[in-house]
């Protein structure tokens, strides 16, 4: 399945280049230290322009999710999971959860970064259950 990918902007091109190399880059303010997402010109905490991308540890927590059974286009194979993941750095991003039974997803579950490689050489940062956080549950494909 290939999905329509964004045209990177001057704010996001570094994000997509990092993602292609399987790194999740998130904006971090050089003035106040705030991590934020999505990228925008001014730091939403202090208004500074002096922010840069730093690499996220890729650990986070699901704060909300939905299991989608009707896709907006045939590019998405249903069911799939859209989630809001709060990264350990403190900012939240919309993403997909993969490598998991959608029925087993829950709010508060720990997730780890992984990538979905795309035909154009880019990759999408997505998340999968953190195997270390649920030792009793084998990871489901």
């Amino acid at each position, binding site marked *: 399945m290939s999905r329509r990918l964004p045209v990177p902007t001057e704010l996001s091109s570094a994000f997509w280049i990092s993602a292609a190399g399987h790194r999740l880059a998130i904006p971090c303010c050089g003035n106040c230290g705030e991590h934020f997402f999505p990228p925008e010109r001014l730091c939403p905490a202090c208004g500074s322009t002096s922010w840069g991308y730093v690499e996220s540890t890729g650990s986070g927590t699901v704060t909300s999710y939905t299991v*989608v059974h009707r896709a*907006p286009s045939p590019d998405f194979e249903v069911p799939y999971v*859209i989630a809001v993941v709060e990264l350990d750095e403190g900012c939240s991003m919309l993403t997909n959860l993969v490598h998991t039974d959608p029925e087993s997803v829950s709010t508060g579950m720990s997730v780890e970064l992984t990538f979905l490689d795309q035909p154009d050489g880019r990759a999408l940062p997505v998340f999968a259950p953190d195997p270390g956080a649920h030792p009793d549950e084998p990871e489901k494909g």
Partner: protein
Amino acid sequence: MALRDVAIVGVHATEQARQLPHRTSLDLAQESVLGAIADAGLDPRDVDGVAADWPGPGGRPGEAASWARVLGRPLNWVSDGLLDAAGARGVMKAAAAISAGLCDVAVVGGGLAGRFGPGQTVNGAEDYIEFTDVWGAYVVPLFALVAQGHMHRFGTSAEQLATVSATIRNNGSKNPEAVMCGKGPYTVDDVLASPMLATPFHLLDVCIAAEGGGALVLTTLDRARDLPHPTIAVLGAGMELSGAAYASPPQYSSVGRLGVSASTRALGMAGLTAQQIDVLSLYDPNSFEIIRQMEVLGLCEEGEGGPFVEDGNIALDGKYPTNPDGGCLAYAWNGTQQMTLKVVEAVRQLRGAAVNQVPDAETAIAANAGSAAGHYELVVLGRV
């Protein structure tokens, strides 16, 4: 003059249907605007303020001044922009302009045809949003993220969501103007048995895209007293926006209470409490959004919206009859002018001329929202 010195004196709603292949957006917009002016007992040349959408062809698409040639006169006030040309936001802007003395009679409205395919649920913004669309997100799952947060925090149940949908859909079932007229009646189980779109929303939990138009005419209270209909004043208004639509991930912790400050402002201006409102015409793109608004408006405590709707409060014969016309769920969601239809229904109720009339309705709230609880606009209306 203040906002409350302005009245809504004319309303018009066109036919609404899932598709109107025999109509154009301009044709619907012009029927709406001219129909609302006629309903007000006014002549097009009386209108000197326009916050109405101009879809073209002719004139210049998106430019409200295009209406000058239709109305047959130069304009004294315009508001350009799709969201300003509809519903509660259009009412408060036009009322603000009239009360500031910038114009005397203003029209708000527009129409939409030719956009939606059959059976399409309401979709999000037309432009691609970088960190949203790439995840397969669109309006139903984005609203679902907010709903899921409420269910997780407060134990709100799928049955409670379905209660909203069944209640409002059954109102629309009896409305001859409704897209879903004659469909149903629906039970909670019917809603729960309909296909799942994005948890927790079933097909019958969300509205379907349709086409149609609507418009409103406003003028001063003094002038309104000489016009044919009962005088419906704009008693209060407010709006609240969290940010650009769908740009940030919607979740209950950030947008769940969006609308509290707008409704506090609007009700405060009106000198009313939410409990004193006789009829509610609220944005219902999905069942959950009504539960959220019961809480935001202060009709019940945060987290109590589920049991509140389960107790029958929003039913036609309940304490807070909500969307007697069938709302977006069953009457019509037609792009931006569904926002205008919320006001049309509130005005009809206050005139005593609605299809599912709430007896002796003297006060109403018409509210618009959207973008997964990203914005909220409401007006408090009253028969004076």
